[in-house]
């Protein structure tokens, strides 16, 4: 229960944090102490406490991305003790709470590490490659206006739910950071599956999957070798079955070779 704060003592933690002044600069680990942390602090609030002290000491605070702090915007991105978002099931690092740690713990904090995500500063990386993937085909080309009534085409609840399961992706990139190959298969698979499972998304399905797969290669994402670390790290629990769906959609596209051909021509 919540009145615990008073009963629990506060914690002191040792933080070992990746600091890097800018893109391409040499980075290093630095050690800090987080004091007076209660179990109710969120992980980022714990970092706020450390940063406030650093600022008052005239030192540069630790840069990290965050915005909504409620697990939905996908902005926060930290590898905590080797695991993207810190390893609590279906939880972003901004929703991780300090009750998961003990007094005296040592915590390693690093940025996402992947070829497609260059480090900008400390824990902040550039995830523009994920936007690029969507730009290459992660949409249904419905211009504003001139669309049919929303209830014109019934969609089975099962399909709608499946599509929604895939659509829950928050685009944080933890799947890429968790993958030993830095692949974006889960991210791409989720988008492809979301749209391919709806009637209105089927017209463009072959082109979409072909274009997105090509973009994955161009953006520097690696290949999938079925490690499935991505699903474990995903704060929304996106299922690897969507990777299988991606592969199936790609095969289907191959048969409709007109759309798929330009991908293979290049290989």
């Amino acid at each position, binding site marked *: *229960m919540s009145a615990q704060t008073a009963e629990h003592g506060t914690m002191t933690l040792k933080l070992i944090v990746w600091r890097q002044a800018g893109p391409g600069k040499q980075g290093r680990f630095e050690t800090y102490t987080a004091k007076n942390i209660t179990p109710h602090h969120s992980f980022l609030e714990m970092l706020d406490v450390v940063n406030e002290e650093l600022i008052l000491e005239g030192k540069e605070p630790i*840069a990290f991305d965050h915005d909504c702090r409620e697990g939905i915007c996908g902005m926060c991105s930290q590898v905590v003790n080797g695991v993207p978002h810190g390893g609590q099931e279906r939880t972003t690092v901004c929703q991780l709470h300090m009750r998961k740690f003990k007094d005296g713990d040592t915590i390693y904090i690093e940025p996402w590490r992947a070829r497609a995500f260059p480090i900008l*500063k400390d824990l902040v990386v550039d995830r523009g490659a994920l936007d690029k993937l969507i730009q290459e085909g992660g949409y249904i080309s*419905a211009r504003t206006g001139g669309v049919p009534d929303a209830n014109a085409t019934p969609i089975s609840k099962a399909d709608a739910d499946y599509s929604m399961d895939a659509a829950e992706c928050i685009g944080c990139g933890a799947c890429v950071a968790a993958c030993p190959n830095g692949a974006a298969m889960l991210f791409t698979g989720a988008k492809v599956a979301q749209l391919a499972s709806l009637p209105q998304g089927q017209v463009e399905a072959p082109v979409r999957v072909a274009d997105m797969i090509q973009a994955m290669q161009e953006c520097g994402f690696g290949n999938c070798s079925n490690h499935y670390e991505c699903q474990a790290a995903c704060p929304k629990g996106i299922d690897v079955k969507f990777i299988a769906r991606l592969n199936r959609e790609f095969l289907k596209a191959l048969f409709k070779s007109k759309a798929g051909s330009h991908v293979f021509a290049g290989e």
Partner: protein
Amino acid sequence: MILDGKCPTGPIEKTWDKHRFDMKLVNPANKRKYKILVVGTGLAGASAAATLGELGYNVETFCYQDSPRRAHSIAAQGGINAAKNYPNDGDSIFRLFYDTIKGGDFRAREADVWRLAQVSNNIIDQCVAQGVPFARDYAGYLDTRSFGGAQVSRTFYARGQTGQQLLLGAYSALSRQIKAGTVTLFPRTEMLDLVVVDGEAKGITVRDLVTGKVRCHTGDAVLLCTGGYVNVFYLSTNAMGCSVTAIWKAHKKGAYFANPCYTQIHPTCIPQAGEYQSKLTLMSESLRNDGRCWVPRKKGEKRPANEIPEEDRDYYLERKYPSFGNLAPRDIASRAAKEQCDDDRGVGPGGRGVYLDFRDSIKRLGEDTIRERYGNLFEMYERITDENGYKVPMRIYPAPHYVMGGLWVDYNLMSNIPGLFVLGEANFSVHGANRLGASALMQGLADGYFIIPYTVSHYLAQSKPGKVQEDHPECRKSIGEVEGSTKRLLSINGKRTVTDLMRELGTLMWENVGMTRSKESLKEAIEKIPAIREEFWKNVKVSGNGADFNQQLENAGRTADFIEFAELLARDALHRNESCGGHFRVEYQYEDGEARRDDANYCYSAAWEFKGVGKEPELHKEPLKFENVHLAVRSYK
């Protein structure tokens, strides 16, 4: 000065159609010669940029996050309204219009609200076509639920992530235009000034948040879609980066700020746990469909919730508002919760909380149904509080959430500065003094997909493209000012952090200008804010430098703007000697504690003109006429 909203006249059902026909069009071949700057990529900005790109305009769009998909629209949980009347339960465009006017406590323009209700249906069609996976029933048709302030079921939803799904829909349309080359995206870029040339909005000055470089972008029209300013209270349900900065800078360049005192406090948020807290988390109001609000009857009750028998519980909303019960509108539900806690019957730490109890609906519908409807909300609640909402009632408390006030715009969504348009939460247009649940998403998308493409074209059709270029003296002056203020912030090197000062401001605003306000509390705030401003500029400590990724500097700039703006908010609240919607003045209430509006003297929108920092702003009034809905006491009993 008396302001004119330029509303079309005639029968209200025809106003928008007629106006659309009367507006000028831009020749398709000329569209790409016009550059439109769209600041913000939330529902309003992304839908506007995508649609304008589709039309062939040359669009540049900006956001402070690393991706347009992270705008705070993403966090909306509950749903989006539309007058589809799919359930056949008596809904219509007129009813949605009526509910919105009444819900707004008769402080919005009829014609704007009518248009919103009219295009609401197109929004749902558009989103479905984009692949937004709305909830469906077993026959495959769209499902709806009810929300506060309405007796029909008109809210469409996608689990507890409606805002996310709508935003991803708009973001996908935007991405398609980026690929097509009609829209250029500038993420991690913050607008810090508006450039006005010969009285017209012609550009913005921005800081690249990665390199620190300050530059100007010029265009033929500027659209501000930068969201709300409720972070002026420091703790709120908004994201950490939400600020008043973009619209405040525009205000300082001449744009009128309307009804800043109309702020919305959301009744169902997770109570604050400690001093270190950085933000508050909303629990969707849709929970009130199945959860019952109650507090113990006895003051200072010590028993845990589950041991308090039925006769010792006070279901205060059901008691006070029998016909709306737990679905009473937000302002009413929030004040009712505060009243219970002020009466020493609150629960949880510090007695700042009320119960939201699912026991009865779990009994009636089963835990699985409740899980299906709200599973992710229960999970979120447990992650934050370590309590299981299926087993013990949730604890909730009101928190700052949304703002109805914003830059003044006319019927075309254009501010008093020609060429400056304002969309979404950043404008003041349709929600009056109080917004109904699920209506902000509707407004953002209505503005962006269905209104601005017409009204911006109408404006552009009357002006030559490319009048101002980036080497214009006004651009250089603006860059100089922005760089100057950055330098100033970095040079103070005082003893207090930005967060510390923002917390001080927020606490003052919450206590004196929050859920309830009085003449004394407002006067005190107006006295104290300048002292905070002085302290800020004397004693703030911002480390690092300007030519770098520097989050302290970003926050410092936003805080400086909040401090200036807070004074305007308090002044507006002090000038409005009535209670209406989200603005509750303790002096103006009926014996039963309900808000007492003063239509004889305050039936107008207050639009303030900037006269200098710390100087008294000038008030302009736009009178409100009600020809289709009778001005009446808003009752939910």
